[in-house]
């Protein structure tokens, strides 16, 4: 049972790391601010969710697992708001020369 949980952790965390990598590639390769924001927020929210999923079996008790999930939700909320704010400023600034 614990071996299956360990394999699940490794798979989930690796998948999460892959999504972080995809988000970073998107940040470096996309042409303008709005597309980069899209790449970052989608990849990082899903990436962080998978990492948290992989860490849940290793958390100490239900309270530890709840804290991990609260961390993920807070990052989701903060990331969504900040990307909205940046997008509004980028849109107002117009396309880059």
């Amino acid at each position: 049972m614990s071996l299956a949980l360990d394999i699940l952790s490794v798979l989930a965390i690796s998948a999460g790391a892959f999504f972080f990598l995809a988000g970073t590639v998107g940040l470096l390769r996309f042409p303008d601010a709005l597309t980069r924001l899209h790449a970052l927020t989608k990849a990082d929210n899903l990436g962080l969710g998978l990492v948290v999923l992989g860490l849940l079996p290793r958390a100490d008790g239900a309270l530890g697992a709840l804290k991990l999930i609260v961390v993920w939700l807070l990052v989701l909320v903060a990331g969504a708001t900040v990307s909205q704010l940046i997008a509004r400023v980028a849109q107002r600034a117009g396309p880059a020369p």
Partner: protein
Amino acid sequence: MTIAVTIAWAFDALLAATVLAVALWTIVTRETFAAVVGFVAFGLLVALVWVRLAAPDVAMVEAAIGGGVTGVLLLGAAARLRGVEAATAAEWPGKTLRLVTGALCAAVAAALAATMLLLPDPAPTLAPEAAANLASTGVGNPITGVLMAFRGLDTLLEKVVLVLALIGVWSLAQDSQWGGLPGPQRQAQPDQSLVFLARLLPPVGIVIGVYLLWTGADEPGGAFQGGALLAAMWLLAMMAGLAAPPPVGSRRLRLVLVAGPAVFVAIGLAGFALADAFLAYPQAYAKPLIIVIEIALMLSIAATLALLVAGPPERMPPR
């Protein structure tokens, strides 16, 4: 277990290299705004380094204050100085001066590195003394014990330094605006997503901040971490226009600011009567006294940090 050790070492090496790369980028990049963003990222990476150095309390303080609150302060300054700084670019030093400075700074770094490599082995440490005396303070977290009991005088004087810094910042106001509202006139309509965040996050943040204070007695945490979080929540509410910054001359505000050091000094003086020295806690009441000091300290720190970021008063309150 050498595989685990190798992986840990590789991670540490990668982390140190990334920290240095981000620091280098912060120094050489041309735009000030980009440099400040780089500095915020640097602060968060250094918090990771602190975790690797087995200091989770310091990691939390670095992430909250070193990365978070300092970042807000510097971003605001960069935005307000944008028009003014362009003229200074002409004062860049010439090539020889840069080379000489680089050589001297490299020499300083090399001297420090040599000291690091020549540190005595086994390392001298005060951990056994701290562990032996921790039981008498009633707390389980040795860092809280050091901050509140063993080196309580340092924490008290640091609180006083914070209040002095705030007085220094306030004294930069123009004479006609002494006692007014800190910070520039906010834009009339803050972005709706920011307002949403400022409605959603502060209740959660306050609960987590108080939790950090409470759990700091036995686990990593404490008054500084909780206070920084509360300050961030207040700043968020002020930035979204949901909470008006208080006028700097208001008595209630000044009472909250002074409460931390005042309670600390009062309990310290009571130590003369109840125990045998300044800031000595009587054995039976050590933990309750520490909790009382920490609560007052947290509120004071939260108010002081938020007001330090808000800045000197710049406009009078509407009558």
